[in-house]
């Protein structure tokens, strides 16, 4: 418990540093007003709007105002949407989580059997086939894979919707697209750890006790190979919540990734900040959960 509280307190300086860096980068990247006004707006019109929005103040003053408001839970108003930035960000979270969970399910369903199978059939055709497929899965650009899946399953076979969010069927292709690279990485990681575990003494002992292969592999070996799997899933969750941007764009999925990229394009500081801080909190929490899960999987791990 003390460990959890200490970890949660560490969040505060991380968030302040993240917010400062984001503010600095967005500030340096350009002027939002140029994007808000008509294309041929004069410099005087631009200056006037900058003044109205408080963007004429020095950087440090702008950041100070932001930080003071943020402490009170107010991330400010979106320049684009003219609404509370945090509300806009939280509105997208369900879609992001939906895609994230589906991708993890897809990748886990693919990776665990293939990783285990590849390990127990080490150096056979199956192993070679699975390993090669993993490399292919990792190497395939998301954009290309998504487009190919759409062309095959939606345009040619007309089995699944092309894009959008609605039913479970809308989720299949985006989940496969986002989950494939993750599955490939997981498969390879699981294979190598399973091979290592399978050569351990306690596996030999289990075999000599007469335990069945299924029990040895899935109860003893797989559980002890799960630590790297948890690490990778935790890392991937962080990536996915930050925006499976390409997948979201190809499939018109209304998640956080699309929002953050639009906000960056429009220099919508409040929304960018709210997005990044929500993602940062989420990443920290997921990493904490992963650390706690290590202990469940391997009781020898202790946190002081």
């Amino acid at each position: 418990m003390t460990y959890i509280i200490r970890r949660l307190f560490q969040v505060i300086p991380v968030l302040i540093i993240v917010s400062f860096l984001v503010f600095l980068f967005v500030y340096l990247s350009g002027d939002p007003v140029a994007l808000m006004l008509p294309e041929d707006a004069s410099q005087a019109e631009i200056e006037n709007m900058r003044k109205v929005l408080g963007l004429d103040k020095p950087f440090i003053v702008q950041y100070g105002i932001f930080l003071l408001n943020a402490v009170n839970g107010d991330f400010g108003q979106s320049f684009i949407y003219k609404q509370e930035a945090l509300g806009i960000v939280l509105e997208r979270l369900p879609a992001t989580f939906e895609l994230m969970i589906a991708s993890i399910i897809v990748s886990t369903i693919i990776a665990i059997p293939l990783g285990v199978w590849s390990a127990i059939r080490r150096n056979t055709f199956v192993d070679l086939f699975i390993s090669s497929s993993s490399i292919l899965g990792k190497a395939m650009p998301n954009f290309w894979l998504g487009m190919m899946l759409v062309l095959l399953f939606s345009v040619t076979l007309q089995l699944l919707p092309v894009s959008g969010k609605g039913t479970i069927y809308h989720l299949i292709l985006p989940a496969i697209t986002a989950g494939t690279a993750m599955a490939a990485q997981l498969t390879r990681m699981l294979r190598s750890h399973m091979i290592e575990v399978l050569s351990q003494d306690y596996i030999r002992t289990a075999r000599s006790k007469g335990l069945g292969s299924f029990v040895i592999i899935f109860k003893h070996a797989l559980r002890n190979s799960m630590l790297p799997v948890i690490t990778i899933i935790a890392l991937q969750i962080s990536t996915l919540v930050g925006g499976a941007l390409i997948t979201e764009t190809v499939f018109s999925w209304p998640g956080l990734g699309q929002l953050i990229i639009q906000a960056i394009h429009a220099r919508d500081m409040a929304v960018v900040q709210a997005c990044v801080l929500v993602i940062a909190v989420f990443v920290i929490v997921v990493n904490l959960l992963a650390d706690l899960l290590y202990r469940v999987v391997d009781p020898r791990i202790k946190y002081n």
Partner: protein
Amino acid sequence: MLKSIKVFTLIFLVVVLVACNGGQSSTSTSSGSTNEEAGQNSNEVEESNNEEDRTLVIGIPTDIKSFDIHDHNQIITEAVHINIFSYLLKRDKEMEVQPDLVKDYKVIDDEVWEFDLKEGVTFHNGDVLTANDVKFTLERVAKDEALTEHSRLKVIKEVKVLDDHKFQIITDGPQPTLINLLSRIGSGILPQKYIEENGWDHFLSNPIGSGAFKFVEWRRDDRIILEPYENYYGGNIQDVDQVVFRVVPEVMTRINELITGGVDIVTDLTPDDITRIEDAEGVSATSAPSQRVALLGIQHREGYVTSDPKVREAIELAIDNEAITEHVLKGEATPTRTRVTPGNFGSNPDLFNTQLYDIERAKQLLQEAGYPNGVDITLTVPSDRYLKSKEVNETIAAMLKQAGINVNVQFVEYSRFVEMRNTGDFGDLYFAAYGNSLFDGSIALEEFATETGKERAGYENQEIADLWNEAHTNMNTQVRSKQYQKIQEIVAEERPHLYLYLQNEVYGTSDKVNFTPRTDSMIVIEDFIQ
């Protein structure tokens, strides 16, 4: 080994079969529910390939910004708003301004316009639209400096309500473009009572207007759902039960949605997409001239080679605009030497659909200017902002090289570009493409008559300033038109801007929809759905 392969094959087949079965049930389920419940959920909404489907789905590249009609400055947002909020005056399919909410209007004197509203117009909540709503709407934008449309509509000094249906607009000096201002982006009329009772935030998430369609739902970055308003003063729309604007950012996905029947109309395609659409069955590509003119801004400050009129002329003569429009833009553009194109008040037809291309004369001019061995110049282009800007500008650079002008093309991020352009730090040339939703020469020519031209390119011309200032407040339309035409002649001669082409907007449509694109890029559903 053989056993493993068999097991693997079996698993693979099971997965494929499950996927196939799932997909089939998806299609049949959605088709069925579409007929019965007319669009209760997204899946129903998308099944436009069903013959009895009464949902029109339009694929757009970005989401709307908000329902604040005065604070977006975005064509896509207005294309949605225009179906919800009625204007006082609206452009028809031929771009002629027609009375919409008003019955009639007259000019009382140079600064006073009197309008008569139609009777029996109601907002979507049943409230009657009165002159007070007009006053509330127009004075809001005229007074609030933070609104993007303020800079255009601040010319409205006051709206005087005479009775429930009669009002006067008092302008700040004579405003010959008032009618244009009231029929462009942000011209909807807001419901005063509804907003004052419920608050602005409530209005933004539950907007009501008096247009042909009422708001049902907005799922950000996903879709906006509208339904016909049964008491619409222009006649109830009966051919559709719902209209859905679906956000589909990726152009290939928009096309795939069109081909598979997921959407009925898609906007913002490129000329390169036309072939793919034409090759597919049941869909076609269609285009119309937009209001967007591509141009090169030319540096006039001393110290730059382009300050020499001969070099500027050589640049124009070296660019084969017809080749650019024909080959790079696949015929989806028209060469022009003016930004005030036909359909805009004050356009000069002699400067449209023409070019001065003459490479030999360009070389000669360069020699006369004192550059027999060629000259180096810089062209600044905003990246990823305008249609095929990379290809167009690389082609321009290649064309200029043939005349002995070596162009260093620098692509920069858009907001950086705006800063470089506005402070004159763009080098010798910059590329841009400007729209004109006012349909009047004043906006297009304003830059050369004000400080803006001087700030950007060091260009000033007193004759243009005098002509523009007179035209800007001239209520005599014939004289004003001639004044604009004269300015265009001077601009074509002195080249503070070198105009390239008027670009088309390309759309894809299902053959079941009788959609004709408009020059103002709006999607007015009542134009093609009864």
